[in-house]
């Protein structure tokens, strides 16, 4: 493996201005109004709020390294990739890139619905920086990889979203860069296609390509990377081996607000302060064998009294499938009026989920599945089984089989008139 530097980042920082005039689509009128206000207000500087999406990030990445960029939502991962791919300029510091860089921050940007698959392959290829000649040479391989050869002359607006993404990824996969920046793009398509993409990335690795990979999927990070850079609130807080980075992520995940909740965590009337997963002997663990029983213990606190909160616990598989769900209300526990700190325990039935990684989401709703009071993550766990993986579905439970004598077969006509 060559030890040359592929990416050198020194003190990278990116600042955004938040506030009325810093938002998008502001019109000239807003500026006039703001200007007039500033005049009337005695030249008070503006209500701009500075926000550092990335601050003082420095690191070296050698050719052939595969680095996972990990962190919670809003930690600055995408900003980092955008700077490295030259889409946006850093406010401070600089980055130098040595080698042909390919960046996939979103699969299929630049595809046009009216054009056919074939036309889009050429268009998208050139957008990604490939030469026409190169696309022509690789065209058959691209189409074969995408598995949609029959539709290659159909306008892509008629494609299913899966087909669309397959074709786009296939083009991108054939870019053959020295340095590849990937932002969650592997989280597309069905599982079989995802495997194929990971296989392809491994092929790239064999050819000594450098890969920077942003993902929330710790399984992909584990399989693909040999180093993790961990970002927290825009700063590099860890740069080292993979297990250490994943550990940090799992720590930070515990209690973090779910990305899609639209209320401010500081205003939630009730919230989770901590959580533990324990086994039948009361020992905290996060690796369980298929068939074991685990107990989830949730500690909460309140800012105001809450009547009959409905605690909902969901197990989300690493590919985003909501695998199962428990609720105090459905399971028949009424909590009455809740004030102050407290603890609630959920004893789960024997685990029947297939071997994978799951994250636990906790939602607290007002009585009757109304308004969401709080939405947080409560850590992750792995299920282990030598056979049952996602090919077996979401869970596995044995069925009862028996051979039926011909006489006792139900009469088909019985249901009809």
């Amino acid at each position, binding site marked *: 493996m060559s030890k040359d530097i592929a990416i050198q980042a020194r003190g990278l920082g990116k600042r955004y201005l938040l506030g009325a005039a810093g938002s998008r*689509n502001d019109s000239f009128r807003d500026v006039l109004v703001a200007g007039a206000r500033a005049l009337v207000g005695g030249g008070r500087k503006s209500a701009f709020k500075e926000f550092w999406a990335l601050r003082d990030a420095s690191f070296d990445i050698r050719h052939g390294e595969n680095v996972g960029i990990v962190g919670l939502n809003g930690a600055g991962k995408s900003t980092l990739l955008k700077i490295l791919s030259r889409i946006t300029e850093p406010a401070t510091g600089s980055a130098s890139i040595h080698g042909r860089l390919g960046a996939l921050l979103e699969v299929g940007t630049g595809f046009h619905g009216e054009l056919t698959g074939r036309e889009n392959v050429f268009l998208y290829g050139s957008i990604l920086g490939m030469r*026409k000649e190169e696309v022509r040479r690789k065209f058959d391989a691209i189409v074969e990889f995408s598995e949609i050869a029959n539709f290659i002359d159909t306008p892509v607006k008629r494609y299913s979203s899966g087909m669309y993404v397959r074709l786009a990824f296939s083009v991108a996969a054939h870019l053959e860069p020295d340095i590849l920046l990937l932002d969650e793009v592997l989280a597309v398509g069905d599982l079989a296609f995802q495997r194929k993409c990971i296989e392809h990335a491994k092929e790239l690795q064999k050819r000594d390509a450098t890969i920077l990979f942003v993902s929330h999927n710790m399984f992909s990070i584990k399989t693909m990377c040999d180093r993790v850079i961990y970002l927290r609130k825009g700063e590099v807080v860890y740069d080292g081996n993979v297990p250490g980075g994943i550990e940090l992520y799992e720590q930070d995940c515990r209690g973090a607000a779910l990305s899609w909740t639209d209320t401010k965590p500081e205003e939630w009337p009730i919230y989770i302060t901590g959580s533990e997963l324990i086994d039948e002997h009361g020992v905290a663990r996060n690796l369980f064998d298929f068939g074991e029983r685990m107990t989830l213990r949730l500690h909460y606190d309140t800012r105001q009294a809450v009547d009959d909160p409905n605690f909902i616990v969901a197990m989300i598989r690493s590919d985003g499938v909501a695998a199962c769900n428990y609720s105090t209300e459905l399971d028949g526990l009424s909590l009455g009026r809740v004030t102050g700190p407290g603890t609630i325990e959920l004893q789960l039935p024997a685990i029947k989920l297939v071997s994978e990684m799951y994250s636990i989401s906790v939602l607290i709703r007002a009585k009757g599945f109304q308004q969401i009071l709080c939405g947080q993550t409560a850590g992750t766990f792995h299920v282990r089984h030598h056979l049952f993986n996602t090919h077996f579905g979401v869970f596995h439970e044995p069925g009862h089989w028996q051979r039926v004598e011909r006489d006792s077969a139900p009469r088909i006509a019985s249901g009809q008139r």
Partner: protein
Amino acid sequence: MFDLDLGAVWRYRELLYFLVWREVKIRYKQAALGVAWAVVQPLFTVLIFTTIFGIFARFPSDGLPYPVFALAAVLPWTYFAEALRRGATGLVSDADLVRKIYFPRLIIPIAGVTSPLVDFLFGMLILVGVMFWYGIVPGWTIVLVPLWLLITLSLALAIGLWLGPINVRYRDVMHTLPFVTQVWMFATPIVYPLSMIPQKWQALYSLNPMVGIIEGFRWSLLGTGQPHLQSIAISLSVIALALVGGTIYFRKMERSFADVI
């Protein structure tokens, strides 16, 4: 600061080609009349102009049949207006690309002013047909048409380089542009000849760079008048300055495109 990095644009020339190709393809793909639209639009415009200005208002037309007189100016003007529109608003219509993929941003306005050339070429076929109908044979000056076209493209690009970055920030540009273009058209000798402008106002009038250009087109295609060298020289220097300044301004502004668009 003066590092314009035009080499990067050259390295991405194939992307330029594909963006132009995409625009042209999409424009005609979903229209039942397809390429005919490139022809129908200027034809109807000229029909209306001929009726209103040629027949009712009896505008002079340099001794030519009014339809030929108007068409020779409507075609380059239509190209200019469309090139200006796409040059100035291309960044916003391709916002997804700007936000997610790196390439020299200059490619977008350049592609914007290039793609309407295809419409112009189809329009020229019609002009040739109409001239043939009226028995007008163009002189040697017709070989200068590409030159005028290049000047028109440069003007549209120069303005696009200034307006594009402003439009990224303030969408007001794209709302104002159609209106401005329309006013500008009537300030240019399209429906009337330059000779209709009183002598004492002509110098001021010629500060509009499109005046020299449109007159140049008419001269090349129909042999009317004489190119006014002085006003053309003024136009050219203004365009050159705006082009260089616009490129510098554009390169300076493009750093924040992905953040504000």
